[in-house]
């Protein structure tokens, strides 16, 4: 059977989407396991170890448990929005993986197989989808008709709006250096001299990186910024009334957002899928190895960031609400602006 170019493109794209989706969902499930294991070790206990070798089948058991639980629907909820909220949260969390280039450019039949779609405003797409994701949290709290949920979602939406500014501004330095919003171009602007040409080291963007990481932790509602679900004050925050798969969707959305943040940090500050010895060591091995090795580096970097997430959660106590707000507005935002000024000044002086 002979396929036209268009049909081939559609076919390869659908396969890409399916594979990336499955890998992302598996990664989400195993990030949960990783978190439980690592936090267990940090707190001097074992973590899950009963299901399968080293507890590796724990995510499967969790999934079965959540599927089989009774799906409670409280009496006085706003039904349509109550159902829509977790769907919005999860969909927004999963979609942003679509623009992430997770390998070197490698074309089969003219279609780049290591990136679902190469968009010329990729960075803006990720920022936009993340900013839509807050509706899931805001609506879940409001539609639950529960004061703790409402408090949680009010906190979440104000926190996300406040930290979005610092987050966006912290990325401007990187965009200035790359001169493009295309994620592939941004990665390509960081190769040449191994890890010294990564934006974090060679680009002197470490201030931007730390602002990004802190703002992104706040955006994903993770410790130490997890006030929207502070269990000591708000029961479970915005997902108090959710059970079964609806709860699981929020849970998955949180971890998928962590993955996205780790991917973006890798792409923008740590050279994406390029190896730390790029340009120093000669390319070796057969062609398939050269295609697969960048993916290995990418996964390793993303894993490091996920580990950092978990480490921070296990180490730092939660912020107080006024501390959170003044930290975002009075410290991160001015620092991000200063970073933009310094970066553009250095670039202007160099040119």
């Amino acid at each position, binding site marked *: 059977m002979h396929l036209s170019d268009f049909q081939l493109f559609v076919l390869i794209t659908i396969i890409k989407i399916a594979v990336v989706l499955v890998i992302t969902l598996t990664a989400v499930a195993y990030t949960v396991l990783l978190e439980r294991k690592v936090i267990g070790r940090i707190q001097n206990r074992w973590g899950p170890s009963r299901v399968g070798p080293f507890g590796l089948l724990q995510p499967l058991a969790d999934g079965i448990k959540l599927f089989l639980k009774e799906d409670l629907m409280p009496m006085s909820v706003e039904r349509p929005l109550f159902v829509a909220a977790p769907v919005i949260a999860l969909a927004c969390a999963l979609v942003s993986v679509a623009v992430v280039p997770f390998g070197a450019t490698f074309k089969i039949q003219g279609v780049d197989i290591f990136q679902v779609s190469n968009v010329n405003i990729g960075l803006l797409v990720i920022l936009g989808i993340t*900013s839509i994701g807050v509706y899931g949290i805001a609506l879940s709290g409001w539609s639950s008709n529960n004061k703790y949920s409402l408090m949680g979602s009010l906190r979440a939406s104000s926190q996300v709006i406040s930290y979005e500014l610092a987050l966006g501004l912290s990325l401007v330095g990187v965009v200035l250096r790359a001169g493009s919003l295309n994620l592939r171009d941004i990665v390509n602007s960081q190769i040449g001299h191994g890890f010294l040409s990564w934006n974090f080291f060679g680009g002197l963007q470490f201030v931007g990186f730390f602002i990004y990481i802190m703002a992104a932790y706040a955006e994903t509602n993770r410790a130490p910024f997890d006030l929207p679900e502070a269990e000591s004050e708000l029961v479970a925050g915005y997902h108090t009334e959710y059970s079964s798969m609806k709860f699981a969707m929020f849970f998955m959305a949180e971890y998928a957002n962590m993955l996205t943040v780790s991917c973006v940090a890798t792409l923008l500050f740590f050279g994406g899928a390029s190896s730390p010895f790029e340009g120093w060591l000669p390319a070796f091995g057969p062609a398939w190895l050269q295609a697969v090795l960048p993916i290995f580096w990418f996964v390793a970097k993303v894993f490091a960031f996920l580990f950092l997430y978990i480490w921070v959660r296990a180490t730092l106590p939660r912020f107080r609400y006024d501390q959170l707000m003044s930290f975002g507005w009075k410290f991160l935002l001015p620092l991000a602006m200063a970073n933009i000024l310094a970066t553009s000044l250095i670039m202007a002086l160099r040119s």
Partner: protein
Amino acid sequence: MNELVDTIMHLALFLIFGGLAVLAALNLLLQRHPINSALSLVVVMMSLAVLYWSLGAEFLAAAQIIVYSGAVMVLFVFVIMLLNAGEEERTKGSKIASIAGFPGAVAIFCLLSFVFLSEGHKLGLSHLGGSLDEATSNISQISSLLFTDLLLPFEVTSILILVAILGAVVLAKKER
């Protein structure tokens, strides 16, 4: 052949997202609860973003999503949740408004669409511009226009925003 696919894709995009925008705007009009109206507007804005993109304005499509639906409408939803606004009640004023308002809106629509459709052949065709591939991007053109010819308006707008922030803080502050 390729042109035909392009045309069909463009028309399908226009019909799907234009239809979605109209339906959501109707929903905005018919819903009684402010939060439902706000969410319908979010849907309108997102489908308009797709149409902006199909007209080759990808930067504005992204700005529409980030600024409008990601910040402004979140602010609206936030205020609706904060004030716990319930369903609105029908009053006398709304009856007068609907008697006078609906014919007026219909008249404006008829006038506008008559003009647009009768002059339609002069306006020409749109083609799926600035497709979101790696090659083209009009962001650099927009920014060079914005930071050279239109620098003064840009700076004035930033001062306007500063004033608006201060005004909002002063207005919303609790009186002691």
